[in-house]
């Protein structure tokens, strides 16, 4: 240990309040830095505080609310936020690690690398825990495809996700893509990874044991991505283009080597702790691992500094890509494909050998201490000496509860055209080709969805993806979901629906929902109306998660999703993306979404359409496309009924009654029926169905066909089983009606005896599968959205 004070280097700017503000720190936060250190920070230290206290790393404006989410459960092996990702027990001595994260701002300026490194980052979060990634998912939002810039973003993002995931060798199995003008300047790119790990082989993100070695492994450190975390914590504007250097560059080949080497290293038992380097790079891993060590030590305190662990590192030892990198740059670099490892003293040689075998750099750069400080040397001098705990979330990082004020969106419900003036077949075909509903084949065929030979479902043809677990009969069901339009119209209800829809998709396969990860994409939390949306959506999610017994295991918050064009600032719709995992004990009992056998009975299970408090078409895709209005509220939703429906679906699947099950969501009942027919290209089967409107109901044919009222599922069953299924539904107090029969190559639907659809499966299929390609490839295609 040294007595000399940290020194600024000659070329560095003078640290003062102005410089702190330009680093994104508030005046009160800078005051707090002065208080913690008892002196003016060095330039490097200012950099460290500014990234650790950025929204991205500190969750300062969200953590108080996130703590109200259900974050524990009997299957959870780690509470939310405790590890890099959530960890859920699935029996057989196995656990699932999973997490979703945003890479919105990098993708807005550099779509290819932004998306690629988003995928890479989330994979590292999983395998740094010792889990082998088995599947990737994503959730994407863009502006209208009529805009060339949007097509450029979509193409770049999809290629970035594909190139990274395909080379990395993990299948991309499910996702969602939505288009809406609110995302034009600020697309959303959320990536999720799911991994498997044996109990007892989980690696932890902790630094402990005085004298244990601190190693940096993987890629060398360059100047890319400096202040990426800060960049993520501000709105996008014309100036953002200049932040292109803040976007990291991905190398999936190195990541694949890092994966294999890391898992091999962890298996030796010599790894005390390990954390990937994502946002805020070396700074974040040093301080978080030290703080975790201090927490676990039960901790003492010396001169107000929590002790028990700490780290001393020498930046001269860090492999760098460029000469002349400053301490500030090395500490803040977000170069990809790097890990920080704490190795048992004396065992570092064995670990170095493993990384050498995989042709990766691995260097000891320091050691674990006990005095509570992160101490950084460069060129023989101490350039930073900061107590670890005050830097981190849950330690001394600021926590704010912002002002929340409801501001009703400026929306209305239109006057509907009379049913007899509507050409329903035309409307149905139009809806099937709407970019938000049409097949995303153009997207998912660019992803390797089958590598590792566990994919039990065809990409795009399912409600939730099913991934078999080799060596067991089990399968995991997984899905991402969020209808942000609903959240915009009613944040509380919309938050609940996002969770419910995800859980329903999982239950449709017969699987039991187990746990949730979330990626909360919102605007600027300093605006009271945005913070209101955030609070309400989180509360809604929490309520639904409690109902379904699916705790939140972790996730990510992305604020400042706003873009500025001239004087106009647009916030994205509040978009709390839910990623959910479910478990199916016997993969052979899995239920698929599409009709399978000629002559099966088609049943509709779920809520009656009409509820007193909402218009039938509110929030629906049909209303937006046909009338150009959103309506006043999210669609009808009943949390209790939703839970009963999911229980029923699992029961029916276990009793082998279900030949198919698909939920009614975007585009309503008629879209669900059409999807059951066409989604699986190898198995296209028509149907004949007959619906009736309820006498004296205020809901007509449009509502019947296109309402997005929640909690409804279309199933097909062998005719002799139909009665039993209806009895089971009745026993759960759920309506269940017979609506038709599968078979033939035509889709025929009539309402009150009058035909509204009579088309060949091939016609619907062609529209469904080709619409997105046409929207993307036609340069001049006004009016496709």
């Amino acid at each position, binding site marked *: 240990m040294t007595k000399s004070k940290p020194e600024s280097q000659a070329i560095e700017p003078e640290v003062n309040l102005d410089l702190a503000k330009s680093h994104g720190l508030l005046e009160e936060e800078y005051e707090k830095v002065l208080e913690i250190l008892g002196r003016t920070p060095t330039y490097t230290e200012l950099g460290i505080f500014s990234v650790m206290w950025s929204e991205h790393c500190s969750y300062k404006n969200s953590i108080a609310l996130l703590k109200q989410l259900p974050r524990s459960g009997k299957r959870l092996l780690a509470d939310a936020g405790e590890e890099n990702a959530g960890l859920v027990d699935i029996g057989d001595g196995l656990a699932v690690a999973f997490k979703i994260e945003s890479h919105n701002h990098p993708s807005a300026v550099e779509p290819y690398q932004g998306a690629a490194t988003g995928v890479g980052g989330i994979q590292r979060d999983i395998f740094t825990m010792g889990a082998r990634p088995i599947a990737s998912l994503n959730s994407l939002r863009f502006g209208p495809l009529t805009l060339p810039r949007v097509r450029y973003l979509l193409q770049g993002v999809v290629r970035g996700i594909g*190139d990274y995931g*395909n*080379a990395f060798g993990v299948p991309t199995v499910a996702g969602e893509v939505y288009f809406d003008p609110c995302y034009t300047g600020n697309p959303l790119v959320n990536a999720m990874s799911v991994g498997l790990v044996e109990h007892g082989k989980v690696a932890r993100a902790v630094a402990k044991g005085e004298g244990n070695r601190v190693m940096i492994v993987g890629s060398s450190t360059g100047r890319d991505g400096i202040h990426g975390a800060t960049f993520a914590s501000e709105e996008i504007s014309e100036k953002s283009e200049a932040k292109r250097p803040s976007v990291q560059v991905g190398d999936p080949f190195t990541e*694949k080597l890092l994966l294999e080497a890391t898992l091999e290293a962890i298996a030796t038992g010599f790894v005390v702790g390990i954390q990937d380097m994502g946002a805020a790079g070396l700074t974040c891993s040093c301080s978080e691992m030290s703080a975790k060590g201090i927490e676990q030590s039960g901790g003492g305190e010396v001169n107000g500094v929590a002790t028990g662990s700490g780290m001393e590192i020498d930046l001269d030892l860090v492999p760098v890509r460029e000469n002349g990198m400053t301490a500030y740059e090395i500490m803040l670099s977000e170069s990809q494909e790097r890990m920080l490892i704490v190795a048992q003293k004396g065992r570092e040689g064995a670990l170095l050998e493993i990384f050498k075998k995989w042709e990766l750099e691995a260097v000891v750069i320091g050691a674990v201490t006990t005095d509570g400080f992160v101490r950084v040397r460069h060129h023989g001098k101490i350039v930073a000496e900061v107590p670890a705990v005050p830097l981190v979330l849950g330690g001394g990082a600021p926590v704010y509860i912002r002002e929340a004020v409801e501001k009703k969106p400026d929306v209305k419900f239109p006057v509907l055209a009379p049913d007899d003036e509507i050409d329903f077949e035309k409307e149905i075909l139009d809806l099937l080709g709407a970019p938000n509903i049409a097949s995303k084949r153009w997207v998912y*065929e660019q992803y390797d969805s*089958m590598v590792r*030979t566990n994919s039990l479902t065809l990409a795009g043809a399912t409600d939730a993806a099913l991934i078999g677990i080799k060596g067991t009969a089990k399968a995991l069901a997984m899905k991402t979901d969020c209808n942000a339009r609903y959240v915009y119209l009613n944040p509380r209800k919309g938050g609940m629906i996002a969770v419910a829809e995800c859980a329903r998709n999982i239950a449709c396969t017969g699987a039991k929902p187990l746990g949730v990860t979330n990626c909360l994409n919102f605007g600027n939390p300093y605006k009271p109306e945005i913070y209101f949306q955030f609070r309400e959506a989180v509360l809604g999610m929490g309520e639904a998660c409690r109902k379904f017994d699916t705790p939140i295991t972790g996730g990510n918050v992305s604020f400042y999703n706003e873009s500025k064009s001239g004087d106009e600032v647009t916030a994205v719709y509040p978009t709390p993306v839910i990623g959910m995992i479910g478990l199916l004990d016997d993969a052979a009992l899995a239920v698929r979404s599409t009709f399978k056998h000629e002559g099966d009975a088609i049943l509709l299970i779920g809520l009656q359409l009409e509820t007193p408090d909402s218009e039938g078409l509110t929030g629906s895709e049909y209303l937006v496309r046909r009338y150009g209005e959103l309506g006043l509220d999210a669609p009808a939703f009943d949390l209790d009924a939703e839970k009963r429906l999911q229980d029923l679906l699992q029961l029916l699947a276990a009793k082998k009654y279900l030949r198919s099950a698909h939920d009614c969501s975007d585009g309503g009942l008629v879209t669900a029926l059409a999807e059951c027919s066409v989604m699986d290209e190898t198995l296209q089967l028509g149907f004949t169905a007959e619906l009736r409107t309820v006498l004296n109901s205020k809901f007509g044919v449009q509502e019947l066909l296109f309402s997005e009222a929640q909690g409804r599922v279309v199933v097909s069953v062998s005719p002799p089983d139909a009665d039993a299924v209806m009895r089971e539904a009745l026993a759960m107090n759920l309506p269940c009606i017979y609506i038709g029969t599968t078979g033939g190559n035509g889709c025929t639907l009539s309402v009150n005896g009058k035909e509204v659809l009579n088309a060949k499966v091939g016609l619907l299929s062609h529209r469904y599968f080709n619409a997105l390609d046409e929207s993307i490839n036609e340069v001049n295609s006004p009016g496709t959205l």
Partner: protein
Amino acid sequence: MSKIKFGIVVFPGSNCDHDGEVVCNALPDAEARLIWHRESDLQQSDVILLPGGFSYGDYLRTGAIAKFSPAMTEVVRFAGQGGLVLGICNGFQILQESGLLEGAMMRNINRKFICKFVSLKVANNNTLFTSGYGKDEVIRIPIAHGDGNFTADAETLRQLQENNQVVFRYCDHTGDESSEANPNGSLYNIAGIINRRGNVLGLMPHPERACDALLGSTDGQKLFESLVRNVVAERL
């Protein structure tokens, strides 16, 4: 009799090595072992499998760097002695780069990576790799590649056809080798070829992904079974 040994060469960036291993180990008379690309010992393998993936990140050119590995030097020698070599996807590209198979792969004609099930016609079932299939049998196997657009000069193509070296062709589910059924622009819908001697086969589709009904197809199984049966027959 001892089990038929499949030696699977693992390059940095291979990612279908374990998938192949699982399939080989599931065969009753076979077992798989992984061979690290730096090793020069092929461990008495009966069949060498070059798996799919992105060896060396596909940087420079697909398969271009892998051919310089010590294991590949041995594989070329092994093939020269008549040893059986199967290259799948990236493995096929490595065989081309190593000169064991003809032609080259260009970027897919739509310039995108494509992953999906396709139909293939078994154009030649008179090989050690395909004897379990019927002549012109139509099978369903997935593809997953960005550079699978097979090309060769006219003379090479003529010889491939004349010597019956084209083993798999892309077709539709009825067996029609139409241009619509050609996913990547390959000349003559070529999906897989064999060398003249009949001991080295390369194909872009992934038979190891079609060996389990739960995965949607078992049509790839016969390829591995054919190999095992024929190696056993040779031993007797």
